[in-house]
């Protein structure tokens, strides 16, 4: 029985989560150590080891290991009567106080939550450096139209233009009967050009693929140097690939040129790609725009990953590797600024006022980077001094860039104090919703004092949610919420599921992305719809594999269909997740249950107390998956968590290892009854995934969990640091606003960007 590696990771994360503060609802039974402590120690040391004024004022905190603590207790405690607590009892007390309040980890857990000084996360660093320079080169827009602007010429030199039109995709066989028939008629040489922009949905390495038996050139995010130059046709290759690293949620200028020469028999071209998590596919219309856009600068330096041990990425630690990466990033920006100085500063070499313009560029650059106007002192240090000491303006500019991008004023949030000054408010909004720098409008509002009230901040946040960057950030949230980053390898047992190909897996992911995207961008953006919808996106391949009818679907075209509405409900039952939370041959109720418990219900689960390999199905040929799991986890030791996990996971049992519906397993009909015991002790029972999904959509626990997870993802600070009321307040307003997810992000930002300022009644 093979276990795919992502499950090991899942267990490791569940293990870390077990240490989380204040979330554990399990393990309420007091341990022996706790009982002894309360009986023999608490009188002098206090119930939480805080000390007592009369007997022992110092708190019980330190960094000795348990073995040392045991020895100290055996030899010295209780005071004057050390023989009263020895052996196993001393060890049990030591273990209890170590975990409860003594150890450094326990101390950190018990410390009241506060807003901690944080550096930019990697995602924030990348977006901020991109926007820092984009501010000088014009804004990017996807626009409303999709596809590319195509032009077709009846010669090889782009002179005799015959057709001008918008093409939904680039996939064309020229010649008689083609949609561009007239350009190839009676001539041997012709050419075509497509222009516009490409939307990169995810951050990562893309392979751009062009298929043609003719000559072509492709430019992407660089209007000077082509990414691919196959103008020279050479050999018999007809497929060409080139890698490019792109930042997700951004649009990049794209141009593709094609020509057919005399000697060639046929003409055809296709523009395809392999984007992260997907297989090769024609670039679909929704990623293309006929709009022209400026090139974007990208810091491509690799960074060490951010700490995610508390469930969300945050920048509360630094490392040498991170510092070195910021140096490389700064050098990359400086080199870019050096090369493009004339354009960025609007000053040609040799111009009389070039130095003045360079200084002006630097002032804007530093202000954008620091997110506030410069004080005289900062102006003197970061700009004037560099210009005075450098031999020429170019050198001065490079030094200003390096100094600025290495400065804590750029690399950290609110390093100069966390007051509610308007520039801090602007910055909290932009990093919260975009993971990037404030735009001109936010800086203008800050300067005009228009970020002082809840209403003003709400208005700005509302404006910002329509930006591509906000959409992209929300998309990443749901990727993490659905644990998609753990579902790396979905390949299945080829004997049972031979037709579950990499292409099907890739299409499934697209189907899931389309569903999430549709809910997020629809006018109601209703969270409950994510959990309960019976509308799913399929292309022709998926329709065939899952046996649904979708007349409008093609290879790259997806259609919505009602998909097994009695059994299936929303993203949780999406075949991508069902297949992801499965073994290679069988479903995995445990992984499905852990996912619902942790992600959807926000429950903390400890790691398994004993390492357990799953029981091999072939050793229990008569048992259904459900029976086998019940057998494996029957011991009381396991049941403390599996009482919660298994009944959630069992309700998905109608879906096999590739997420297909099944009525029976091993000749026995499927039992998909499940239940959930809430934090407040009520039991909810359901039969099958749809009933469970409907319960979850109405559960306050789910709403609270979502609000808190969203808060942490956007703000990257503990929600409790903003006071005890903020979570219930945000949850209430989420319910009142009909679970509108975009509105939730606005409310979260309004509450966290301007804390301690109440909304007007």
């Amino acid at each position, binding site marked *: 029985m093979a276990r795919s590696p992502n499950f090991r990771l899942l267990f490791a994360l569940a293990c870390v989560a077990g240490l989380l503060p204040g979330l554990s609802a399990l393990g309420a039974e007091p341990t022996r150590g706790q009982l002894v402590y309360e009986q023999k120690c608490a009188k002098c040391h206090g119930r939480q080891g805080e000390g007592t004024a009369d007997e022992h004022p110092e708190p019980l905190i330190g960094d000795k290991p348990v073995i040392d603590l045991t020895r100290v207790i055996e030899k010295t405690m209780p005071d004057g009567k050390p023989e009263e607590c020895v052996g196993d009892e001393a060890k049990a007390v030591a273990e209890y106080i170590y975990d409860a309040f003594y150890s450094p980890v326990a101390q950190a857990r018990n410390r009241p939550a*506060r807003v*901690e*000084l944080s*550096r930019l996360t990697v995602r924030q660093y990348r977006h901020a450096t991109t926007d820092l320079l984009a501010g000088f080169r014009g804004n990017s827009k996807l626009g409303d139209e999709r596809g590319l602007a195509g032009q077709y010429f009846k010669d090889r030199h782009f002179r005799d233009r015959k057709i001008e039109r918008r093409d939904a995709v680039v996939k064309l066989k020229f010649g008689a009967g083609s949609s561009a028939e007239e350009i190839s008629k009676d001539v041997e040489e012709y050419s075509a050009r497509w222009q516009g922009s490409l939307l990169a949905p995810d951050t990562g390495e893309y392979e751009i693929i062009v298929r043609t038996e*003719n*000559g072509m050139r492709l430019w992407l995010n660089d209007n000077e140097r082509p990414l691919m*130059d196959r*103008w*020279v*046709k*050479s*050999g*018999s*290759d007809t497929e060409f690939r080139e890698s490019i690293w792109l930042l997700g949620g951004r649009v990049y200028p794209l141009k593709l040129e094609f020509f057919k*020469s*005399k*000697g*060639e028999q046929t003409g055809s071209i296709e523009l395809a790609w392999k984007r992260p998590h997907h297989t090769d596919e024609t670039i679909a219309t929704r990623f293309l725009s006929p709009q022209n856009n400026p090139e974007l600068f990208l810091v491509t330096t690799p960074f060490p990953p951010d700490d995610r041990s508390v469930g969300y990425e945050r920048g*509360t*630690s*630094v*490392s*040498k590797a991170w*510092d*070195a990466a910021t*140096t490389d990033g*700064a*050098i990359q920006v*400086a*080199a870019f600024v050096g090369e493009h100085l004339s354009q960025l500063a609007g000053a040609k070499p040799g111009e009389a006022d070039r130095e003045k313009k360079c200084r002006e560029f630097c002032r804007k650059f530093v202000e954008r980077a620091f997110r506030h106007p410069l004080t005289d002192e900062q102006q003197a*240090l*970061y700009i004037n*001094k*560099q210009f005075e*000491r450098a031999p020429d303006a170019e*050198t001065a500019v*490079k*030094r200003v860039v*390096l*100094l600025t991008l*290495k*400065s*804590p*004023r750029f*690399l*950290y949030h609110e*390093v*100069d*104090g966390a007051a509610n000054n308007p520039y801090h408010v602007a910055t909290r909004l932009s990093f919260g919703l975009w993971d990037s720098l404030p735009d001109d409008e936010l800086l203008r509002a800050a300067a005009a004092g228009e970020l002082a009230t809840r209403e003003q901040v709400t208005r700005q946040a509302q404006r910002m949610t329509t930006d591509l960057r906000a959409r992209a950030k929300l998309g990443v949230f749901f990727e993490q919420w659905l644990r998609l980053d753990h579902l790396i390898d979905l390949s299945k047992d080829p004997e049972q599921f031979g037709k579950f190909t990499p292409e099907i897996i890739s299409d499934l992911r697209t189907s899931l992305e389309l569903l999430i995207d549709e809910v997020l961008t629809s006018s109601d953006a209703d969270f409950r719809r994510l959990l309960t919808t019976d509308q799913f996106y399929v292309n022709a391949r998926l329709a065939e594999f899952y046996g649904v009818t979708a007349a409008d679907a093609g290879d790259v075209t997806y259609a919505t269909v009602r998909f097994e509405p009695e059994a299936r409900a929303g993203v949780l039952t999406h075949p991508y997740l069902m297949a992801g939370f499965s073994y290679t041959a069988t479903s995995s109720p445990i992984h499905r249950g852990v996912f619902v418990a942790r992600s959807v219900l926000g429950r903390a689960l400890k790691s398994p107390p004993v390492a357990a390999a799953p029981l091999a199905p072939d050793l229990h040929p008569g048992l259904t998956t459900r029976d086998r799991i019940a057998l494996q986890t029957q011991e009381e030791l396991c049941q403390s968590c599996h009482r919660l996990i298994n009944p959630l996971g069992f309700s998905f049992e109608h879906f096999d290892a590739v997420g297909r519906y099944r009525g029976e397993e091993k000749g026995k009909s499927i039992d998909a009854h499940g239940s959930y015991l809430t934090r407040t002790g009520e039991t909810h029972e359901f039969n099958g995934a749809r009933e469970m999904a409907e319960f979850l959509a109405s559960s306050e626990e789910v709403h609270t969990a979502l609000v808190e997870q969203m808060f942490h993802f956007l703000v990257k600070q503990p929600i409790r640091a903003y006071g005890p009321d903020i979570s219930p307040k945000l949850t209430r307003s989420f319910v009142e606003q009909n679970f509108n997810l975009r509105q939730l992000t606005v409310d979260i930002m309004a509450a966290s960007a301007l804390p301690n300022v109440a909304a007007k009644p």
Partner: protein
Amino acid sequence: MNQTRSRRKFLRDLGVGALSLPFVLNLPSLGFANQAARKQRLVVIFSPNGVVPTAFWPDAAGADFKLKASLTPLEPFRERTLIVHGLCDKVRGDGDNHMRGMGCLLTGTELFPGNIQGGSHTPAGWSSGLSIDQEIKNYLQQNEATRTRFGSLEFGVMVPDRADTWTRMVYTGPNKPVAPIDDPYQMFNKLYGRAKDQGHLKSVLDDLQADFAKLETVVSAEDKQLLEDHAAFVREMELELAAPRDNELAHAEPQLDPGVKEENDNMPRLSKMQIDLMVNSFAADFARIATLQITNSVGGAKMRWLGIDEGHHELSHEPDSNESAQDKLTRINKWYCEQMAYLANRLAETPEPGGDGSLLDNTLIVWTNELGKGNSHTLDNIPFVMVGGGLDFKMGRALNLKNIPHNRLLLSFAHGFGHRIERFGNPDFCGGGPISELT
């Protein structure tokens, strides 16, 4: 001028005593790769459109040869020169002779069919194999002792800004042509950009640390630790930047004349700048292999500084009977030869860092061409003129081989580096292996 120092002197200056030398010398971190065996280098210089045979090839073979008009600039290096007549580019297939002359010159193999139509023959694409310089570079880069930062450097002078079979002679593999860098400033950035950026960084670190110190007083006590941790990394970086690297010890970066535009009339200056950069990168041991592609196959340089207003390619089509044209072509090739002589001279006057003798003692310069003769477009008797002691060839001679495929010369280059491959390019032209007469 560059400061070059031997490794022994460097260690002496460090105060490392003689007793510890054998140990220290084994430390790769001290740089100066490949001390045990001598360093070996290969430079290929290309110029286009064939030569005027009567003004190029010596009349007699042997040690007692006389340099003809085109080759007179090599007089100071006569004893270290080897002129090989009789090497023929036998590769046929798609493409006209200019295309094959260029694309097969260093690859020794056919061009792929393609969509580039020359003046005659069938259209063609890129070469179907890698070039010998890249083959040798890969060989050197595999071995720790001979590995260098870049392995090879591809220089150009006035190479047109278009990619086709006429403008590329170096290939890293089938269909993988390498564009030569013909902008000296771009080459300078490639070689020294990192060091320059680090210089800028060094100059702002004091200011950065001053601001760190100020901010540490502003943040709360609980947050201060994070900033202090960060500041410690910045201090570490400062120390690392202060420690000079091996290459910086061995040589200072060259100064380029600023603002030389890429224009026909600047060719002499551009060529000199590129050659100076090449010599510097050898002294710093950035690479052991270099190519210098002057213009391109069919190149039309107008050498107005010689009083020649016509383009080179246009002149090269003139018949033998046009004496004025033949005189101009002779002078044009003499100018190319002067570039080789300038490189030889610079290498000869630069001591070998960490070794004995000069850079030229360990470098073989090969000057070649895509055609034997311009007006006939022949691929027979391709010019190969060599200077320097890089590969243990027996120099100071004119050789007259009779109709030998040039693939065998490419094999000889590899064998000269100890890379004993049996075939290179099209195996049909490798019979007999490396050319024994060379050594």
